[in-house]
C-alpha cells in the first residue's frame, strides 16, 4: 500500500511496489486522457530550496496533467525560509494547506527530516549530493518501457561513477533484478565507491567489469547510461587529455553498438553526447525525460491513493 507513504530513498519501495507504480505509469502513457481529472481538487506543494527547473517542471507538469493544482516556491529567498523558518515548521504549515509535498534542498537529509514532521506524503526531489529517488524511478520506467524487462541486461555506466548519485542508485536498483551485468566505464580515479563494489555488487555476486574506454565495450551493451565528467574531477591534466574523448559519445562509437542498445542520460547534457547522436534511434534521453513526468504522475496518484477515481 503506497497511499500516505513518503519517498525519500530510491530503495524505500519494494520491487513489488515499484511494479505497481510502473504499471500505472504504463496505463497513463497508453491513455493519458483517462487520467486528466485523477487529482482534481488535490494540491501539490513544491518546496524548492535551490533552483532546479527541470525537476520542478516535471513535477508541476505531472500534477497539472492529472487535473491537480500546484503551490510552492522555487528558491528560498522568496519564502518564509528567508526569515529563518525551520524545515520542521515549514512542512508542518504546508501540511495544513497541501495534500502532497515535493522537496529539493541543498542539505542532505532535509526531506527525511521533513517527512518525520509531515502529515502529508513527502517526495525527495534531490537533497544535495545524497539521493534523488524520482530520477531512479525515471530510469527504471525508461528501461521497462524501452527494453521490456529489468533482467538479463548488460548495463554500461559511463563517466563520473564516483560522485554521480544517479549511477549509484541505478546500480542498487538494477541489482535487485536477476542476471544483470554491469560494465563500469570511467577513469581510475572516478570509479564507483568501494561500498557500491563491496556492499552491492560483490555481496550479491553480480558480474561486473571496470574499464577505462567506452569504445572498447560499447558493442556488448544493452543500455548505455552516460553521465558528465567535470574536467576538475580528473587527477591531472595529462589524464584528462588522454581520456577525455573516451567519455564523449559520438556517432563513431554509436556505430559500434548493438542496433537495439538504448542511450540514457539524466540531463542536462553538456558535451558528453555529441548533438549528432540525438538523431539516432538509440538516443533515448529526451524520451527518458518524458517517462520522468509519467512516472511522477503515477507516483503522485499512488501516494495520494487516488487511482480508484480514474
Amino acid at each position, binding site marked *: 500500500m503506497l497511499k500516505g507513504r513518503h519517498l525519500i530513498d530510491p530503495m524505500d519501495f519494494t520491487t513489488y511496489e515499484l511494479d505497481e507504480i510502473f504499471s500505472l505509469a504504463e496505463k497513463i502513457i497508453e491513455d493519458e486522457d483517462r487520467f486528466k481529472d485523477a487529482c482534481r481538487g488535490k494540491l501539490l506543494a513544491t518546496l524548492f530550496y535551490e533552483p532546479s527547473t527541470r525537476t520542478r517542471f516535471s513535477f508541476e507538469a505531472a500534477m497539472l496533467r492529472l487535473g491537480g493544482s500546484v503551490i510552492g516556491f522555487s528558491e528560498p529567498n522568496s519564502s518564509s525560509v528567508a526569515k529563518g523558518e*525551520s*524545515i*520542521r515548521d515549514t512542512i508542518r504549515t504546508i501540511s495544513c494547506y497541501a495534500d502532497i509535498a515535493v522537496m529539493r*534542498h*541543498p*542539505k*542532505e*537529509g*532535509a526531506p*527525511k*527530516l521533513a517527512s518525520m514532521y509531515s502529515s502529508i506524503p513527502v517526495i525527495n526531489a534531490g*537533497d*544535495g*549530493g*545524497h539521493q534523488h529517488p524520482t530520477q531512479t524511478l525515471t530510469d527504471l520506467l525508461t528501461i521497462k518501457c524501452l527494453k521490456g524487462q529489468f533482467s538479463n541486461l548488460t548495463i554500461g555506466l559511463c563517466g563520473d561513477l564516483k560522485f554521480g548519485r544517479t549511477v549509484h542508485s541505478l546500480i542498487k536498483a538494477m541489482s535487485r533484478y536477476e542476471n544483470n551485468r554491469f560494465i563500469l566505464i570511467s577513469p581510475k580515479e572516478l570509479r564507483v565507491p568501494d561500498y557500491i563494489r563491496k556492499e552491492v555488487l560483490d555481496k550479491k555476486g553480480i558480474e561486473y567489469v571496470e574499464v577505462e574506454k567506452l569504445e572498447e565495450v560499447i558493442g556488448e551493451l544493452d543500455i548505455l547510461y552516460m553521465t558528465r565528467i567535470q574536467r576538475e574531477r580528473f587527477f591531472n591534466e595529462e589524464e584528462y587529455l588522454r581520456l577525455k574523448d573516451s567519455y564523449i559519445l559520438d556517432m563513431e562509437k554509436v556505430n559500434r553498438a548493438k542496433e537495439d542498445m538504448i542511450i540514457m542520460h539524466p540531463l542536462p547534457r553538456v558535451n558528453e553526447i555529441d548533438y549528432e547522436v540525438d538523431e539516432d534511434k538509440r538516443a533515448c534521453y529526451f524520451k527518458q525525460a518524458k517517462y520522468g513526468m509519467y512516472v511522477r504522475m503515477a507516483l503522485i496518484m499512488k501516494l495520494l491513493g487516488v487511482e480508484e477515481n480514474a
Partner: protein
Amino acid sequence: MLNIDSIKNGIVIDHIKAGLGIHIFKYLGLDKADYNVALIKNAESSKLGRKDIVKIENIIDLNYEVLGLIDSNITINIIEDEVITKKIKLTLPEEVVDIIKCKNPRCVTSIEPNIKHIFYLVDSERGEYRCLYCDEAYSNMEV
C-alpha cells in the same frame, strides 16, 4: 592477580577490552568520585586474554547505551550485600540519539535548530552506524 577488596553494595563492570577501562572510568566521572572506586587494567582473562575491570562501591545511574557503544562486550554486575543480584550483558544499541553530532557539513543537522541527532546501527559486527538524515558512516568508537 592484584587483590581488590570485594564490594558490598555497588557495581562491577567486567570484561572490558583492555585499554578501554580508562575511557569508561572517565566517562562515568569516577576520577572525581568520593566513594571507593577501582580501575583494574590488564587483568588476566580466559575469554579475552587481558581485560579491564571497573569496581564501584556505590549504586550509580549507568547509561547502557553509551557503555554499549564504548564496548558492547562488557558485563555489568550489580552487587547487593556482597551478592551479584543482576548481570547485564550489553550490546550495541540499535539507535543512538543525541550522544554525538553528525560531522558532515552537508547534513541537514548542520542548519536545522533543535534537531535530534540520530544514528542507526547498520552492521553490528563492524559496529557501523549511519546518520539517519545523511547516511554518513561512523564506527561505534567515533560515536
